[in-house]
């Protein structure tokens, strides 16, 4: 894009912003200029201060020090509403959906169109019409009248995007908008970003997927520990330079791929079926390997894993553990059979956010380590926490720290620790590195390797092709509720996996889903290595 040629006045100037939370200095003297018609990528590790900065820009937080100059005027707004009124809209990192409301109501939340002069009565028709128009433009497969809570995470994210697009904003901020989107949806998003740029809208774009920068970014700023460490036009910088400035050192190969030695079978499923979700899924996982499970978002991988973990009831099929068929009635029995399951939604199904690190780690193992059958063993608790804080290099002020105060990477390590403490031999990791920065990712992959080398078995569901290619020893691919193939290390390539995940015969490719799949192949370049 030739946007960078347009050297207008900055629409927003952040000047020497400092923000301190009790005990944490999240931002120190941050100054950045943002220009209209430009995508400005904000990069940095977890906890670098990206979200904090955009929350200050959008009026969620009040800065401790510093000024915001929007459209050449100094601003100090007290709530997000004032920022919105100025034309600053945000897609927040955490999904911001009101589950009970319809899609249209979500899109127009807080600025519902009114009838008449007083704007007292709601103009529902106009609201739904406008919402539908925006959705059609984005080519999504749901309606404005659907209830938002019934939609998938990806679809909800599309609602968020529709929300900012319909706002006629001057500045649009997107905090990790693609973390739950499939490639086709990402492509739709990027189209919308192009449109916004054409309309001279300034865009702040936050992501951990550096590959995306190639397509969208005009300019980047890297934050480390709340300090600006790099500012550049995108074309003037290489990816390895970006990574180096984010981490503060050079990371050559953060996957750190290792050759594992596959041993005996640990888990085998045959003909696993949950009606309407997936059918006839059969595969095996072995001691000493990382089995990747690839597929597009919504292919049914999560459901398969939930069913193996006995969180969902299966309609038919068999599960074998170490060669023995076992009928697991509930997750408790799965845990007793040494299966651990790190879910894809950390905040909702992975952690007790308000509880301490310690309580999160020991929860599934309490019963096994009980004193006199009923009592918690506090000595063991302390010992095991300290042990794993060391082993996994978990950065936390202490055992009793409330876990929501930890960074995403450390939270993920706590979840790993939880299943290691539970003496899991089979670890199911569903999107284990979603929303985690490069450094934490690389540490996490090392831990996975260690676990496998020590005789463990990992099943890793991931939507990130590079991750699958970089970490897995073998991969199975799912497509629309079916197992569509298996590739060993030698056969694994981006193209092969994408073919199994999405390609359909020409005749069938009329339904929306398959159309999605087809376009995926092209857009997969976005995420390819």
């Amino acid at each position, binding site marked *: 894009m030739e946007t960078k040629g347009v050297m207008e006045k900055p629409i927003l100037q952040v000047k020497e912003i400092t923000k301190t939370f009790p005990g944490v200095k999240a931002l120190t003297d941050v100054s950045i200029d943002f220009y209209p018609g430009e995508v400005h990528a904000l990069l940095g590790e977890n906890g670098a201060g990206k979200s904090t900065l955009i929350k200050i820009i959008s009026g969620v937080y009040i800065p401790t020090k510093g000024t915001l100059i929007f459209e050449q005027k100094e601003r100090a707004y007290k*709530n997000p509403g*004032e920022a919105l009124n100025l034309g600053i809209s945000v897609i*927040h990192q955490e999904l*911001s*959906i009101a*589950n*009970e409301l319809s899609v249209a*109501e979500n899109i127009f939340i807080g600025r519902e169109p009114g009838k008449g002069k007083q704007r*007292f009565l*709601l103009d529902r028709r106009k609201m739904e019409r406008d919402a539908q128009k925006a959705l059609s433009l984005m080519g999504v497969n749901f309606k404005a009248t659907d209830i938002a809570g019934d939609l998938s995470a990806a679809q909800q994210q599309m609602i968020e995007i529709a929300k900012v697009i319909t706002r006629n904003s001057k500045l649009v901020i997107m905090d990790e908008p693609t973390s739950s989107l499939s490639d086709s949806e990402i492509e739709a998003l990027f189209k919308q970003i192009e449109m916004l740029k054409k309309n001279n809208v300034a865009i702040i774009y936050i992501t951990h997927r550096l590959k995306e920068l190639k397509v969208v970014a005009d300019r980047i700023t890297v934050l480390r520990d709340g300090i600006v460490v790099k500012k550049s036009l995108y074309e003037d910088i290489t990816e390895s330079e970006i990574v180096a400035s984010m981490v503060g050192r050079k990371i050559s190969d953060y996957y750190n791929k290792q050759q594992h030695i596959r041993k005996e079978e640990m888990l085998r499923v045959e003909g696993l079926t949950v009606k309407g979700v997936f059918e006839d899924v059969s595969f095996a996982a072995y001691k000493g390997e990382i089995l990747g499970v690839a597929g597009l978002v919504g292919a049914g991988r999560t459901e398969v894993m939930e069913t193996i973990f006995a969180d969902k009831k299966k309609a038919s099929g068999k599960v074998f553990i170490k060669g023995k068929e076992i009928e697991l009635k509930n997750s408790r029995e799965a845990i007793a059979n040494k299966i651990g399951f790190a879910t894809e939604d950390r905040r909702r199904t992975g952690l007790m956010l308000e509880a301490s690190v310690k309580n999160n780690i020991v929860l599934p193992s309490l019963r096994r380590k009980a004193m006199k059958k009923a009592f918690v063993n506090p000595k063991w608790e302390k010992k095991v926490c300290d042990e794993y804080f060391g082993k996994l290099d978990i950065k936390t002020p202490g055992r009793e720290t409330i876990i929501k105060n930890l960074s995403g990477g450390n939270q993920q390590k706590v979840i790993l620790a939880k299943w290691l403490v539970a003496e899991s031999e089979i670890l199911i990791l569903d999107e284990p590195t979603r929303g985690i920065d490069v450094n934490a990712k690389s540490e996490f992959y090392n831990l996975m390797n260690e676990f496998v080398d020590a005789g463990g078995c990992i099943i890793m569901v991931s939507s990130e092709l590079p991750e699958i290619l970089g970490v897995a020893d073998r991969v199975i691919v799912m497509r629309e509720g079916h197992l569509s193939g298996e590739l060993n290390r030698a056969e694994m390539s981006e193209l092969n996996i994408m073919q199994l995940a999405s390609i359909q015969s020409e005749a069938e490719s009329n339904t929306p889903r398959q159309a999605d799949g087809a376009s995926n192949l092209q857009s997969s370049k976005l995420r390819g290595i």
Partner: protein
Amino acid sequence: MGKAKEWSEKNAVVIVLIVLIIFFGIANSTFLTPANIINITAQMSINAMLTIGITFVIITGGIDISVGSVAAFAGIFSAYIGLKFPKAPLIGILGIQLGSAIFIGTICGAFIGIAIAKFKVVPMIATLAMMTSARGLAYVVTDGQPVYGLPNKFAWLGAGRLITTEKMKNGVIPIITIFLVIILILMHILLSRTIFGRHVYAVGSNEKVSHLSGINVDAVKIKVHILCSIMAALGGVCVTSKLNNGQPAACDTYEMYAIAATVLGGTSLLGGIGSVLRAMFGCAIIAIINNGMNLMQISSYWQKVIMGMIILVAVIIDMAQKKEKK
């Protein structure tokens, strides 16, 4: 077939209501007489007013257990003002009644709303405090005595009836029922057709998102609590009018039936979902159980037990239907 099933999933409560009507209709010959049906509509009116207000609060994800006390306090207030103007014309009396309700409701509701929105007190405790205090004040101002000697016109709103016939010399249509229907329509429009109504749902569905979207969440909460207290106060004024007498003990524990009616009407205690129209089915169920059991001369002790069980069963049926759908 499929449609009927879908309808029944959404309207389990209507089915419970119909079953009850059929049951009492068979069990007692008076139950389905026009006179009795009219009585039921009049008897449910007061609970219905409290229920409408509570429904708004519950949709925002809150709760209000003070409505009974606020009702009593407002009722007494209206009685005192009424005593001061013994010669007022009907329209003046109505003004006093509505004015008292709005005045007391606004004060109590603003108090509760500010405690919840600004001081972050959990709704249960904020309204518990109001429940205790308003009841206490009702006793303080009356010194425990009923307020009596009100002009007859004071009873028009709560006890009057329109259109007299041969058989029903005192009138057919209770004014309180008409009053309820008017309020109901207004409140239904407010909730379902206005922007404010959307904000009520939005706050209940996701407070954080509402805030980030520029909705003044605190203001919505305060307004909703004022509305709820005004509705409660209207209920209390109607009781005073109906009895032509202000009782400090009035409407004791009515909040429980209002909450039950709201939930029976499909409003979720978690917020974000609900309707004032449907809440009326809940009120009707409770009124019908009371009325039917009175007519059948069932002992008041058993009435309590049966009432508890029917509410439970109705909610279970409703839940089961919704779960099935999932």
